[in-house]
């Protein structure tokens, strides 16, 4: 793996910063004047009750939504309106809340698509599958097989993903994101709908990705136990507003956060 974050960003420095960002759909403010940062090498959780604006925030970072106000800085450069495929070029990968895989393809092909940006050989070479294109294809297949080994999905690599159980689909989706060798990995509820065992597996993979490859991770998650175990720092959103930001312990004991989750007696 190449050095995540590139040579210009050292571990612990700010990789991405969100400053005073607001996003509204018509009259509804999905995100309201939110600022936080993600430091290189950390696992950053974004939590909050339903409708807090977590996924909107991820979509902003990823370029699917463009905030009306505020500024986003990635790797030290202020970002103008950026589209998702450009964010991918910049080194941002993601998974989706409801698993967005290429359903007609095998697990292997899905992960292979994650290598799209890294393949450069001419289309004619690829068509006849020889010469430099063959070398390249083999090289990328190699990287993909490593990811498959890492995620322990050897047994299902040739299976069409639509036929896989949900937990496995989530794993393939993580594999596709990893194939991009991202600097910043966004995970939208990586454990939603999983049983205890699957959750433990997924937690282990997330920690391993962070430890072994040094990939910076931002994740949204509902399972509080998981969030507290995994993350270095947590930002809490409620109704589009940031209500807390800090280590899991600080956030856990924050009265505003407790009220937001449990509701306050009026």
């Amino acid at each position: 793996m190449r050095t995540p974050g590139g040579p210009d960003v050292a571990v612990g420095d700010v990789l991405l910063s969100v400053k005073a960002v607001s996003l509204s759909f018509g009259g509804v403010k999905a995100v309201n004047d939110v600022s936080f940062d993600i430091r290189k090498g950390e696992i950053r959780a974004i939590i909050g009750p339903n409708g807090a604006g977590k996924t909107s925030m991820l979509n902003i970072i990823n370029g699917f939504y463009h905030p009306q106000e505020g500024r986003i800085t990635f790797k030290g450069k202020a970002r103008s309106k950026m589209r998702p495929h450009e964010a991918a070029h910049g080194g941002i990968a993601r998974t989706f809340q409801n698993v967005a895989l290429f359903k007609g393809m095998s697990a292997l092909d899905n992960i292979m698509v994650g290598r799209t940006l890294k393949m450069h050989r001419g289309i004619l070479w690829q068509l006849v599958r020889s010469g430099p294109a063959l070398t390249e294809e083999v090289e990328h297949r190699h990287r993909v097989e490593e990811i498959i080994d890492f995620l322990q999905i050897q047994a299902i690599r040739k299976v069409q993903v639509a036929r896989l159980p949900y937990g496995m689909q989530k794993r393939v989706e993580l594999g596709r994101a990893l194939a991009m060798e991202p600097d910043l990995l966004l995970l939208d509820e990586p454990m939603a709908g999983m049983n205890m065992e699957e959750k433990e597996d997924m937690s282990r993979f997330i920690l391993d990705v962070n430890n072994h490859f040094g990939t910076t991770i931002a994740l949204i998650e509902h399972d509080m136990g998981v969030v507290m175990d995994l993350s270095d720092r947590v930002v809490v959103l409620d109704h589009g507003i940031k209500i807390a930001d800090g280590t899991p312990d600080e956030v856990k004991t924050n009265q505003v956060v407790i009220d937001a989750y449990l509701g306050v007696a009026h």
Partner: protein
Amino acid sequence: MVIFGQFLEVLISGLLAGVLYSLVALGFVLIYKASGVFNFAQGSMVLLAGLALVRALDFLVTKGFSFWAAVVVGLVFAATIMAITAWLVERFVLGPLINQDGLTLFMATIGITFILDGGAQMLFGSDVYPLPLFPSDAWFLLENAFPGGILVSKIDVFGGLIAAALVVGLALFFQRTKTGRALRAVADDHAAAQSVGISLNWIWFIVWLVAGLVALAAAMVWGTKLGVQFSITFLALKALPVLIIGGFTSVPGAIVGGLLIGAGEKLAEAYLGPAFGGGIEYWFAYVLALVVLLMRPQGLFGERIIERI
């Protein structure tokens, strides 16, 4: 023996004619698969490609080029025209309409149809232009086995060969190239495709370009058969039942659908025609499509439609 020979002759000519329907249907399937747009303009793209080819050819031949050199240059010219069309369509129509629903995009392609029809005839003229790319006579096969042999038209055979080459080329393109893989990815999930760095605009340009090249192939064959003329756009209507039978999302479906309709309508004409007083060829395809719609709405090869309530 005479009866069987006759049957074979009708069947073969039907199958070969069917291949030509498949050629037009293929263009529809490509665009529908990758962008969910039913491209009403496919027939007009055949006209545009055909006019560009035949007019360039005539011009070059009068300038003293040898015929086959002129064909090569003419094909390059027509391909360039299709590439420009693809770029314009993506840039000014589909790009701005991103994320609109299917009916909106369908209406937009109806608009494109009229612009292409008008533009093509304004640029290249609106007469009937003969396109003598392939010999127009026929072979007589198996003269020993059947009295008089089996008549097989050469144009249809060349058309079949072109279609076969196209299908093999497309299959390799989809399976082996990065762009082909990206196309399949876009067809399955737009958001996920974008998230791995695939640009939708680029993919849509590629799809329309490939559909344009398929239209050029269709124009080569149909143009030789009928002459390049406005009525070639009505081919799009013949492709509709092919799509319904084969399924809108399946490349093999487009081929099989074309073959079924081609063979079906010729056989029906020959054997049922007398009972109905002839003319079956003109409506057989649509009735067959209706039957398929009633029994298997997604087509023979289409993705199964699962409705959850």
